[in-house]
């Protein structure tokens, strides 16, 4: 099945999950998707769980606190969290198995913009991680280095590198005839 069809099937599934309010169905989806994930099941389950932990934890805790003062039905929390976990796990499973770039290949503008934006995001993330590691290895903290005279050259280097890499990429794509002028 093509990437586009998998993506459409995924979209239909997550909409259906929003229309059924059964805890057992959500639980079943989590188990079924985990089984299908075979070797990567624990990694994807852990990733989905950690993604939701802080955020859903905050809402869950605040609702439980609210329930101390106002009589409310707290069973909704289980449905809310299981639904969030099943959809997030499905998302990570899909992204693990398909190449999302192919889903956008119906439009050259979207697919080029996606490729550039994604590569820039990853590049910037890695550069900042390397900068942070560099600070830590020198015994400095990220908080202490957030001064005007340090931020300016950092921002300049980051943006200049990103522009340079992007221009290189567009030249490479153009030379191979993949981009129209």
């Amino acid at each position, binding site marked *: 099945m093509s990437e586009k069809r998998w993506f459409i099937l995924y979209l239909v599934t*997550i*909409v259906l999950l*929003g*229309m059924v*309010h059964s805890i057992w169905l959500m639980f079943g989806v989590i188990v079924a998707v985990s089984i299908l994930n075979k070797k990567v099941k624990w990694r994807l389950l852990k990733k989905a769980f950690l*993604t*939701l932990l802080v*955020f*859903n*934890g*905050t*809402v869950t*805790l*605040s*609702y439980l606190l*609210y329930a101390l003062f106002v009589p*409310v*039905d707290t*069973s*909704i*929390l289980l*449905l*809310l969290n299981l*639904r*969030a976990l099943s*959809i*997030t796990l499905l*998302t*990570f499973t*899909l*992204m693990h198995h398909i190449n*999302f770039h192919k889903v956008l290949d119906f439009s050259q*503008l*979207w697919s080029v*913009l*996606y490729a*550039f*934006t*994604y*590569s*820039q*995001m990853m*590049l*910037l*993330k890695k550069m900042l991680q390397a900068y942070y590691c560099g600070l830590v290895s020198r015994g400095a903290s990220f908080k202490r280095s957030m001064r005007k005279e340090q931020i*300016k050259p950092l*921002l*300049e280097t*980051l*943006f*200049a590198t*990103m*522009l340079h890499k*992007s*221009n290189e*990429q*567009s030249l490479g794509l*153009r030379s191979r005839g993949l*981009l*129209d002028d």
Partner: protein
Amino acid sequence: MHIPDGFISPQTYLPAAVVGAGLLAIAYKKVNLDIEKIPMLSGVSAIAFVMMLIIFPIPGGTTVHLSGIAIVALLFNPWMAFMSISLVLLIQALMFGDGGVTAYPVNMLSLAFLGSFSAYYGYHLFKNVSKKFATLFAGWISIVLPSLFIATVLGVQPLIASADDGSPLFFPFGLDVTLPSIVIPHLLLGLLEGLVTFGVVNFLRLRFKRAFDE
């Protein structure tokens, strides 16, 4: 400010998806993105992505973080900003689980659309008075208006999607909780966003003058 999966009902996100798709189609027609501009646009969008990475959850059902949307809107134009931020939000939702896929249409309409257009027109409203103030205001409004929209969408969930006995099926808090707990922190965060927008826009325009003038 991203809403995660499972908090928004299909009654909300399906119409929002239709509106969002329509707006993206308009953006696609309006944006004449020449190939020279794509590296710059993707670079500035990546800065917005990094600014959105540092998030703090708040009890009202969303997160507090800087957005960088005003930076993209002021350096390019609101339709380009809408397109690129929509793409950043999609990548965040699919690859990192930051903001739900089911909540994506609402996140797109609030952050990408309202954020970009409010920043752009907010700047143009005050630019003849003071460019400095106009840039600060653009950053502030690009955070505050989307937070108001998100608080409203979350707060109406118990009204539009509840069980027969009245218990909520999606986000459980009403407007009395979401409006103060989401909008008030963003009123303050907006000041920081305004300062960051002012600093980054001026810096990029000054240091990369050639890139943005071409």
